[in-house]
């Protein structure tokens, strides 16, 4: 018994992992997620108009790899291949990717949405559009494969943003409430004052630097954004260092309550009161080009409130349970109790909401495409669905992306279920 206890103490998370692996449906769901991630990463090799390997004019080429290299700025295509019609070159020898189409390329022989069972004008079965084509003759399967990349990033990135902010804020509000967290008066003043300076120097004076860089490329935009966040963080650190020094003065060092619940819930109320659509329209019109990353940021920044409210509601209950009192009397610090003992017991509704949120983000993106606000330069699952709306007979435009979203909702929910069970020590047997 003692040995088991010690083992548990060593690593709670290792134990959770072991428990999770016991649950087969959850484990298989995780494999499905791995599969989606693999498809997302390997999309250019799975669906591409360029061959994987080919021998042309006596030279051996690896055009897909070469394309990636060119994308990174390493090397150039040989002149005779720069604007090549890859499909119709006379190769000595060639291997095409499994799907020999790019999502944005139009197959002029198969326009007006040819279905998988319709007669397609193709040289051989090798060139068949297995999932059909859309109105412009673009291959749906290729769109699905490249869309996986976008769906996975949108779903996972936006919900990661939402859950990190949401769990943190909700935990502060629910666990500490209004009366359980004291700091010196000067620290509150300093933080409020420097919050203004942080925004001013981090974002205010750098507004154009950030938007310019974002317009140029995502990488540069992120660098500028991180720089701004860094400046902001530095200002806040400075505020707290100053407060630590200044609280030695008795009048300033008086301990006062921080009403976390009050403040955080008001922030949530304010955010939820402004119609999301209004916010999205606004931000998109400010950024001008509806960019996928902007959409992810918006979804993340607006959906953390749900996560936060779930965590808060559970913690309002959990903080009054005996075992928290026990932990307090054992002398654990508040944050230790919060993150180690309280939050794991409040995760069930949060995991469900995150699981639905991942699929929900994909659906939000599709709704934005439906309203004509989606990204214009790529094909996404959502866009395929919105094309399906224009041509009701073309079931293949709806069934395949719909099925992919269904698989996503299901596996993330099953993983959430598995995690809930694994986190609960009462199910140890």
């Amino acid at each position: 018994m003692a040995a088991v206890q010690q083992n548990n103490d060593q690593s709670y998370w290792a134990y959770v992992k072991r428990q999770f692996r016991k649950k087969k449906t959850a484990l298989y769901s995780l494999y499905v997620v791995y599969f989606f991630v693999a498809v997302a990463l390997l999309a250019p090799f799975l669906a591409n108009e360029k061959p994987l390997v080919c021998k042309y004019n006596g030279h051996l080429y690896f055009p897909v790899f070469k394309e990636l290299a060119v994308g990174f700025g390493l090397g150039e295509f040989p002149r005779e291949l720069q604007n090549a019609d890859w499909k119709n070159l006379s190769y000595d020898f060639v291997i095409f990717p499994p799907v020999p189409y790019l999502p944005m390329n139009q197959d002029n022989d198969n326009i007006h949405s040819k279905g998988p069972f319709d007669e397609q004008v193709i040289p051989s079965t090798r060139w068949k559009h297995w999932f059909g084509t859309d109105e412009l003759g673009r291959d749906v399967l290729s769109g699905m494969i490249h869309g996986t990349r976008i769906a996975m990033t949108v779903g996972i990135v936006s919900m990661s943003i939402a859950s990190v902010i949401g769990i943190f804020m909700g935990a502060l509000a629910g666990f500490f409430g209004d009366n359980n967290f004291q700091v010196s008066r000067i620290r509150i003043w300093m933080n409020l004052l420097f919050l203004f300076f942080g925004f001013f120097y981090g974002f205010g004076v750098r507004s154009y630097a950030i938007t310019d860089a974002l317009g140029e490329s995502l990488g540069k935009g992120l660098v500028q954004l991180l720089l701004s966040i860094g400046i902001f963080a530095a200002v806040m650190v400075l505020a707290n260092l100053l407060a630590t020094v200044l609280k030695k003065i008795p009048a300033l060092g008086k301990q006062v309550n921080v009403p976390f619940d009050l403040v955080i819930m008001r922030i949530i109320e304010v955010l939820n009161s402004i119609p999301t659509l209004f916010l999205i329209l606004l931000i998109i019109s400010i950024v001008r080009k509806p960019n996928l990353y902007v959409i992810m940021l918006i979804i993340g920044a607006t959906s953390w409130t749900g996560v936060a409210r779930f965590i808060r509601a559970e913690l309002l209950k959990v903080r009054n349970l005996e075992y928290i009192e026990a932990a307090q009397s054992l002398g654990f610090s508040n944050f230790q109790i919060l993150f180690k003992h309280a939050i794991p017991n409040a995760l069930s509704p949060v995991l469900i909401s995150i699981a639905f949120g991942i699929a929900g983000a994909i659906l939000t993106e599709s709704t934005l495409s439906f309203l004509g606000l989606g990204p214009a330069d790529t094909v996404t699952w959502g866009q395929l669905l919105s094309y399906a709306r224009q041509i009701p007979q073309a079931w293949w435009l709806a069934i395949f992306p719909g099925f992919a979203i269904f698989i996503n909702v299901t596996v993330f929910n099953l993983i959430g279920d598995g995690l809930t069970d694994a986190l609960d020590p009462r199910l140890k047997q």
Partner: protein
Amino acid sequence: MKPVEVKTASGTTDSGKKFVAAKISFPLFGYVLKRILIFIPTLFIISLLTFILISIAPGDPAETMLNRSSGDGQASNKLSTDKAYRDLRHKLGLDLPIFYFSFGNMAECDTFNRIAKKDHRETLDRLIYDYGNWPQISTYYQQVNALEMSVLTTPRDSTNADALIELRNLVNKLYINSKDVVIADLLTGLQKNAAATPSLATVSGAVQQTQAAYELVKKEETVWKRYVPVMHWSGSQNQYHRWLFGDAKWFGEESDPTKTKGFLRGDFGVSFFSKRPVKSMIWDGLWITMLISLLVIVIEYVISIPLGISLAVRKDSLYDSSVTVALFITYSLPVFWIGTMAIFFLCSPDYLDIFPPFGLGYATWDDGFFYKLGDLAYHLALPLIIATYSSFAYLSRQMRGSMLAVLRQDYIRTARAKGLAENVVIWRHALRNSLLPIITIFASFFPALIGGSIILEFLFTIPGLGQITYAAVIQKDYPMILTNTMFAAILTLVGYLVSDILYAVVDPRISYNKK
């Protein structure tokens, strides 16, 4: 660490319900009062934030209202449209500062809103960012204005017609470009065109002055000013004050019909576009959206809660997994697609003609109460199905999850051990403790009452608030957006307060006054 203060004035009673009621209401009363007082600053912040968001959004309602063509036409024509535009902005109060004070940096200009055109403001803002010297930039802007006037007033003849068109083009570009290279290019282009024709000597002079002004902007840059935060004070002559309090007299009759009474006195303004009072527009849409939303909530809860409980009770059975899969399928298909399909296949004479494809019917209440009711039900059936089906998955999943968490507790085992029927265990003991997530979701339905389902109203052409809001956002109809946001905000606040009270009612362990 104590639970809620127990009020024992009524003595210890064994009647459970009474006891709970007495125990809950008293400590909560103060909390509720405090929360309602906090509504005021929260609403203030929300309205202010909406104001700020509106003002930074691109596009200008005055511009859309006049539907002006940019820069074409003769000088007098252009001058009159410019004047009409300025007057309209003044009438709508758009030339006022946003709020009583504003934070900014030293380089900025605090009377920026007086510059009429939004694209000009954006260009100037960028120039201020790059050079930080508003006085010089202002001179430059005036020079560009003078240059435009000289181009427009130069009499046109056969020798200079082409050059004039080109010049006007270039000047228009000068207004909306802030990049150094582009401006330099435009200025040399202007100079070349103006110098080529002798009759354009005045224009040439204006170009030179503009060039000089621009050189001065570059030479006397004070970028450091950007890093100095300052506060601008604008007094009560601002858009926010006007919207909230209005500019009509508080006491006695107001003779001037153009004065407004302000939001606080129930005057929500007049829609920029339909010219109808916002109040009546919202009222028209409100009852439809309210009706639909309430029905949707009732249907969703009545179906999802028992469904979620039954799934939890039969966890991991075939029933659980098959229903779950079916629910996930419904969740995965977006509402707009299912809606379109339903309209296409269920409302058309070509396939099945079961439901009406749009609207709410033409029957009025005068045709007989039950006739109208039947007609309304007939028209609402399909929209309601479409609106509810996708929420079953989420709601019942949350119910299942929280019910499972409760069913694992020791007291449930105790209840079972003492021989209570399974139904009693579930409905009497477990349900109440598993309602927290459901209450959390419930609160977010309140704002949905006013936002409505935009997609649904689009698909079925229902003239509800969702459509009105969408149109208002697209057209930048400020009074509509503001009123809508304020009502949504009030409902959100009420919803969250109700949910916080419900938390404490269903779970006495929850208290907000914990020391």
